[in-house]
């Protein structure tokens, strides 16, 4: 009885901080977010975005990963089933049908590729050699007929491009999947 009376008497001495402890501390959350932020900043490359799979395009697959050679001046050609985009900014160069039937469109594409390749070749080192050999990276949907690919390879070779790459997705087991399909 005496003890409880004493406790009641000291009630006003209990610090208020004990009442606040139940509230959520966001400091640990900020720590996690900081770590996550640093990790993401270390892994995200703006340059790498150029070589990722574009939206609404299904790449064909290949078994091994072979990266682009370093120090290349790369021009990207994106061949969708319904449109053709060229360059880093994805300039629209018409549909596949226009590409096949309109010589003006093809000339425009050739001129653009030539201009871009020459710009890359103009960047020279101290010995007068091009710093970055021009490279054409063809990103095409897997359903595109080879005629368009052949034409773009032909345009690329006509436009001073030394290297031509095809963008694919990594799938180490596609041959096994293919074997299963043919056995059915």
């Amino acid at each position, binding site marked *: 009885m005496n003890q409880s009376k004493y406790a009641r008497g000291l009630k006003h001495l209990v610090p208020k901080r004990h009442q606040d402890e139940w509230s959520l501390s966001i400091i640990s959350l900020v720590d996690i977010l900081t770590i996550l932020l640093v990790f993401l900043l270390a892994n995200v490359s703006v340059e790498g975005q150029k070589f990722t799979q574009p939206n609404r395009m299904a790449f064909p697959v290949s078994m*091994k990963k072979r990266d682009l050679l370093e120090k290349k001046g790369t021009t990207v050609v994106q061949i969708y089933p319904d449109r053709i985009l060229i360059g880093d900014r994805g300039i629209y160069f018409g549909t596949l049908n226009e590409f096949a039937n309109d010589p003006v469109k093809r000339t425009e594409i050739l001129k653009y590729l030539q201009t871009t390749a020459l710009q890359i070749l103009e960047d020279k080192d101290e010995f007068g050699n091009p710093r970055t050999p021009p490279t054409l990276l063809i990103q095409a949907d897997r359903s595109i*007929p080879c005629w368009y690919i052949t034409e773009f*390879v032909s345009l690329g070779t006509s436009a001073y491009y*030394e290297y031509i790459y095809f963008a*694919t*997705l990594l799938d180490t087991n*596609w*041959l096994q999947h293919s074997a299963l399909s043919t056995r059915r």
Partner: protein
Amino acid sequence: MAHPPSARRDQHRFSPPKVSDLVPLMNLFLIIIPFLLLMMVVTQIAMIALNFTQGTSTEKQGEGPLNSTQGTQKNISEITIIIMASQDSLGTTFPGFEIRESGNPKESIGLVNGYYDFVKLDAKLKAIRQQYPDLQDISIAPYDDVLYDTLIKTIDLCRENNFPHIHYKAPQVRYFAQEVK
């Protein structure tokens, strides 16, 4: 009699510690992190390099640095894989692969269950590799209506069988006019 300390003095002593305002920082994080997650590359992109050859192999060679071996291997057979997707009226083309090797009869690999038989092509390429261990060049000639996916898989199989120099050819269709008397 001793009096307890006044409430005013206690208020100062037991006031909660001052925490800096983290809400603006949280807001910044909540904007930046979804943006970075969107930019993050999840899929693994592979690349296939190409040696380009237009027309037949003797007509025009690409000038890329990878195109250098064919001239040094004139005593070795030239292998060409022709990829076809349809059958013509004369029966000269069929859906599938045709492997042409100089000095040997051509070999045909047709579709199985409507799919290209990459397993058989792989076996054939392995046999060629055993027959010519030093051969580095191989040519691929897809017809216009062949899908890009089939072309890439064929190139990939050649790479897997240690043919580092793959030449891209466009098949030439030649028409012979017969003189009518």
